[in-house]
């Protein structure tokens, strides 16, 4: 029988990592995990993850920073909130996954070329420009960047959707794009002014 194990020398462990995650919005209850595994059992995608949600929690607390931030687990999480609802300790695991994704993006350690993080970045940038998602254009950019060879097959699929009026080629956008850009710029300036992570200081540990 093959045992799953992960061993590190004490000197290689990042002791501050757990504290960093617990300080992010959503991470507040990280230390109340009892490692029961309910999250992994209820998660529909855990069989495809490199580390299950329970293991991710254990690895955060163990200081396995690099492994956690580069894993595909957080990106496979489809945000269905099963784990958060079922967790007996009321830990919002979905929001811990979000906190990890954000940290990975900021530290630029998300798995490169992985379609989910590519889609996430593409989506993020296009909404900031237009205010609305143009589904056809977004899918096209995703396939161009990740699987250009599959475009032909996707073209057939796209045509079937288009012929039923379900896929537009038009660029969807809002009227007040200027206002939206200003709003995003203002909150960015505010959030990156060094005050960002004091957000948690005002939280009373309430369930998200």
């Amino acid at each position: 029988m093959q045992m799953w194990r992960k061993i590190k020398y004490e000197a290689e462990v990042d002791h501050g990592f757990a504290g960093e995650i617990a300080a992010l919005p959503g991470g507040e209850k990280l230390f109340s995990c009892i490692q029961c595994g309910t999250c992994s059992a209820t998660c529909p995608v855990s069989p495809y993850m490199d580390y299950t949600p329970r293991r991710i929690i254990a690895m955060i607390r163990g200081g396995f920073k690099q492994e956690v931030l580069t894993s595909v687990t957080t990106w496979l999480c489809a945000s269905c909130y099963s784990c958060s609802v079922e967790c007996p300790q009321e830990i919002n695991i979905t929001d811990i996954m979000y906190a990890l994704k954000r940290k990975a993006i900021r530290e630029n350690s998300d798995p490169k070329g992985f379609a989910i993080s590519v889609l996430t970045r593409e989506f993020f940038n296009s909404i900031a420009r237009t205010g609305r998602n143009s589904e056809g254009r977004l899918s096209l950019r995703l396939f161009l960047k990740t699987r250009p060879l599959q475009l032909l097959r996707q073209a057939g699929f796209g045509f079937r959707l288009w012929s039923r009026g379900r896929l537009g080629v038009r660029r969807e956008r809002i009227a007040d794009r200027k206002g939206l850009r200003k709003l995003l710029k203002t909150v960015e300036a505010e959030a990156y002014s060094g005050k960002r992570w004091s957000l948690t200081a005002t939280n009373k540990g309430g369930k998200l």
Partner: protein
Amino acid sequence: MSYLYFPGCSLKGLGRAYEESLLAVFDTIGIDLKELTDWNCCGATAYMSIDEVKACALSARNLALADKYRVGEETIHLVVPCSGCYLELSKTQKLLRDYPELDRTIKSALSDINLEYHGKVQIRHPLDVLVNDLGLGLLSAHVTQPLRGLRVACYYGCQIVRPYSTFDDQHAPVAMERLLGALGAEVIDWPLKTRCCGGSLTGTVEEVGLRLNHILLKEAAKRKADVVATVCPLCQFNLECYQPLINKTFGDALNLPVVYFTQLMGLAFGLDPKVLGLQRSFIPLPAYEHIREAVER
């Protein structure tokens, strides 16, 4: 009571039939859904994955736009049919309540573009409005073509029942079963009804997305469902449009129609299938033709 309507991007594209059937059904009942002017994308899971402050800003803009329609101290009811939008708007409300500093940051940024949000917007799913505000009695009074004999698997997916919804049980929701049951349908027991379809995984990590949807469809087929009823544009798209590829990948022969619950309501109300957007389906609803002929005879 008046309702404001937030369609979201998908209801103007992939889920166009959802919007068509939703508006037709509400029109039949005599309730006006007024579309929120210049609404923006809810940010979906992408914004929360990259920047939670910007994610909140996007949704807060929509909440503030809705706030403009408020008269006096009344609460505005914003009807949000897409599960992703429903979740993001609800989540933003929760974050703004829990994190006062975030609330201050967002509200001051909103005021720079002449918007205000006073917290008096309630996020409502149409299923909630139909079952709890209007009531099954009123809805069944509009039925001209009961859905008799149609075996329906009611699919809730994830984000309208978890974690912010208050209108139904998080583990075993029943609103849709009650609604479609009142319209004559035979609702089947289907324990996977709140299991996630994987969202955009069909487009990113295809083998995982297909597998998740195969499990859902196979279980519904084993329980002899004639149709799966959905409440979310992405679930509908995944479960229906990927069936040919699912069959090819897993050597199956599924052919299960997947429609919006509002389309089934419209059929029960005797509305034209074209008005309900049923011509946009990949897999037609043969059971329905059978029922209609039976009723006409």
